[in-house]
């Protein structure tokens, strides 16, 4: 076993780990007060001493957490593994410092421009990581989780959510790509370090105890987000894209994550909704004369998509597995090509062909014009913020549908089909009906999202619905964690946000993106936020998790 050597190491020096961690943390904190670079024009000026900003502050926070974990290591609660947290934090810190060094070297033209603070930080980071690897392997006992008053628990949730909002707003407002990059690493270190040490599971537990408050808090955070943007539409436009993408991915998650059917043409459902909305809009290029109110259009779009879902799903009666995947891929391509062709030249004039339907006007709900800037409490909210709120409502609806279906007779039927279709059938599960239902529901939700997307985007064209988009949707589902809501939200966010923020390296953007997909799958094949069940499935039997699962179930049963 590869770990045996580190085990020996830990056995020999394990006692020193806390001190090493504290020393490392102290150095990291100290480094924040020192100058990191000679050049004052880069990375928001980190050449000043005793006046930490940006990167230096991140370093100090990393140090603080390291010290905290070190202390915990000395007096370890039975439900925590600070050593694991330190490993994550330490490694991330090292990457963080090296990344900064790289940025300095690149932007200022050479490593010589790095100042003492950086090297102090590097030493601290290495020590923190070393502490992680020195600390002994421990067994986490989740039964020892502290039981708190439920009000306190809710308070914790609220605080965590507030932190989340703050971090989110802060992150998105970082302009400098390099700073964004190292900040991300620092966040991974801080959050990963804390969660990895056992807090993650514990927070999950608290969250599980307080589902409702958690959901409410999460939505509140999402709702407040536009108010942190101060009228700027830049991030809000990305946010709307993320929401549309996430809503669609959640629909796909029903098909793939729950029912276990691989769908490679899913983007077509989004497209169906979008095209329906576009064709029925008042755009000069719209091809359908009838202009019902938008709510009706939404329903028509979603239903049309659902009908397509039924059609695309119907071969599942006979075709299964990867053959089904290619059937869906085929349908997806047929959809795109049909949209591409139906311009009167080839087939009837419906979609305006490759040029698409541009100039789709903004929505107006009861006199509320989504295209206008509205002010609430003095904070201007632009066009994209307006759509953001609408999409938030949509996402809430999608999540509701997803979770309620998942946790029902139907959801169980889907999982059974995913596990063993023949056996499910032999146990009286209406497999065909359920598979079709998965397609229809998923398509309905995607179609719904599509109708709004058409207006947010102001145009639809066939090249928005290429196979690669379906692949990305699938990636969001798999990357985030199949069958989970949170996972898909995270996956969708990463997949949409990263390419935007990677603009710094514009030409290398896609290259790095591709690489990232590979690396993420390499290290977390079960997805970032795997459902507990899935995690068991993939990481073979892990006593800890099993216990966790049981503890949670017991909790639920009460």
């Amino acid at each position, binding site marked *: 076993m590869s770990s045996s050597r580190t085990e020996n190491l830990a056995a020999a020096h394990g006692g020193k780990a806390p001190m090493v961690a504290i020393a490392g943390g102290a150095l990291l904190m100290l480094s924040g007060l020192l100058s990191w670079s000679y050049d004052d024009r880069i990375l928001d000026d980190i050449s000043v001493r005793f006046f930490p900003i940006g990167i230096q502050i991140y370093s100090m926070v990393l140090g603080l957490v390291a010290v905290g974990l070190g202390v915990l290591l000395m007096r370890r609660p039975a439900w925590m593994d600070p050593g694991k947290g330190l490993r994550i934090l330490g490694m991330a810190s090292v990457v963080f410092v090296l990344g900064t060094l790289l940025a300095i070297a690149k932007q200022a033209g050479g490593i010589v421009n790095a100042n003492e603070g950086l090297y102090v930080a590097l030493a601290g980071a290495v020590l923190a990581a070393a502490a992680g690897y020195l600390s002994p392997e421990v067994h986490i006992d989740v039964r020892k989780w502290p039981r708190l008053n439920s009000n306190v628990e809710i308070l914790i949730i609220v605080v965590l959510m507030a932190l989340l909002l703050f971090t989110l707003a802060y992150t998105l407002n970082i302009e400098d790509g390099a700073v964004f990059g190292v900040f991300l690493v620092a966040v991974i270190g801080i959050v990963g370090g804390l969660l990895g040490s056992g807090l993650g599971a514990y927070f999950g537990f608290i969250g599980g105890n307080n589902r409702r408050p958690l959901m409410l808090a999460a939505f509140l955070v999402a709702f407040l987000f536009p108010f942190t943007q101060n009228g700027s539409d830049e991030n809000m436009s990305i946010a709307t894209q993320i929401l549309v993408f996430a809503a669609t991915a959640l629909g796909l998650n029903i098909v793939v994550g729950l029912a276990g059917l691989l769908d490679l043409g899913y983007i077509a459902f989004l497209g169906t909704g979008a095209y329906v909305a576009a064709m029925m809009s008042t755009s000069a290029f719209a091809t359908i004369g009838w202009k019902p109110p938008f709510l009706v259009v939404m329903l028509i779009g979603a239903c049309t998509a659902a009908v397509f879902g039924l059609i695309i799903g119907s071969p599942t009666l006979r075709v299964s597995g990867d053959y089904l995947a290619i059937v869906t891929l085929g349908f997806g391509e047929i959809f795109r090509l049909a949209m591409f062709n139906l311009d009167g030249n080839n087939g009837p004039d419906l979609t305006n062909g490759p040029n698409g339907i*541009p100039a789709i006007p903004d929505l107006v709900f009861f006199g509320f014009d989504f295209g206008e800037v509205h002010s609430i409490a003095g904070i201007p909210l632009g066009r994209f913020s307006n759509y953001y709120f609408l999409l938030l409502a949509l996402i809430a609806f999608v999540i509701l549908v997803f979770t309620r279906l998942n946790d029902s007779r139907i959801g169980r039927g889907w999982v059974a089909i995913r596990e063993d279709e023949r056996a499910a059938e032999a146990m009286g599960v209406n497999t065909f009906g359920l598979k079709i239902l998965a397609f229809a529901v998923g398509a309905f939700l995607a179609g719904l999202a599509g109708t709004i997307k058409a207006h947010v985007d102001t145009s639809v064209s066939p090249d928005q619905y290429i196979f690669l988009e379906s692949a990305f949707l699938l990636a969001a589902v798999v990357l985030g964690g199949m069958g989970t809501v949170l996972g898909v939200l995270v996956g969708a966010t990463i997949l949409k946000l990263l390419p935007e923020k990677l603009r710094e390296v514009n030409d290398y953007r896609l290259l790095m993106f591709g690489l990232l997909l590979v690396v993420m799958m390499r290290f977390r094949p079960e997805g970032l936020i795997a459902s507990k069940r899935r995690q068991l499935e993939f990481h073979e039997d892990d006593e800890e998790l099993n216990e966790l699962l049981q503890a949670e179930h017991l909790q639920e049963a009460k």
Partner: protein
Amino acid sequence: GCGSRSDDTEGTDTGSAENKVAKIGVIAPLSGDLAALGKGIQNSVDLAIRQANEAKTIPGWTLELAAEDDQATPDVGKNAATKLAADKDVVGVVGTLNSSVAQSVQPVLAAANIVQVSPANTNPALTQGADFATAPKRTYPTYFRTCTTDSVQGPFAARYLFETAGIKEVATVHDKKTYGQGLVEAFSAEYTKLGGKIVAAETINPDDDKYDAVISKIKPSNPKTVYYGGEYPQAGPFSQQMKAAGLNVPLMGGDGIYSGEFIKLAGATAEGDLATSVGAPTDTLESAKDFIAAYEAAGFAEPYEAYGAYAFDAANAIIQALKVSLASADSAEAARQATVDAMSKVSFDGVTGAVAFDEFGDTTSRVLTVYGVKGGKWEAVNTAEFK
């Protein structure tokens, strides 16, 4: 050993600090197969901006370039426009290259009151609406262009083929995009009116790279020329494959195939292929001498290509309008509407000739040129004013 302690104070003192910034955007394909044309546009606008800043054309203001890639796709173009519209400093945009992209960009920029001048969009509907032939109606008050349209280019090519080259039977092929389809329609109408015969009319999907089946389908109708509506990334291979399949007739296209890249892709058999393009050849124009010299002096990596001069003129048209609109404005955003208003009054002698816009935003010039491939290069065959 790499790098040095950075004490070289470069770039800190361009322009006096009190100067306000206004940006001119560019939306063009900066990557992908059409990047050759797109880069030419970007560089030429860049040149115009540099010259204006040097000459302090607009006192108190520094102009900056904000170039966005549209990858020649409507969707990406629209996103680029959204991004530029969200940037409060942007007052005008030069672009797009493709008419199809323009269709998606127009409404976004129009909603933000940003003036858009295209150096290359030739589809007539962009300025005169879908019924341009019968009931022209201006669609977006913010949209202008410095090149002439396909309602001139198509007939121009038709007349050349029928009258000058004496070809009476033609097959048409287009790529279904706004530009290609519009061009072929304009061409066909004039050509049949003249008495020529369209023996086959096909379309292709621009994502394809093999056209055997279409070529085989056209071949038995024995066209004497194939008229192609579309762009060189497809037209080049199409020409090559046509001839490899034994259809040994010239291919003719519009400005979309007038690029050195076409010849590279079509290979040796491109000899004799024809193209029309807007205006007179840049290098023969007296008025373009300075532009060409300045362009070369600026040291751009890519040539100015077919639309460099038009883009230069487009940028200068915007700058002319900005002279008026920025004079009294305290922010770039506030000057957007004024810029649009000033635009219709712009009139000056540009690189490509007199620059001025009619009531639709179209250029007043109607000069076109027929080019032919000779010895592996495009050579002007005939320049004329269309009447």
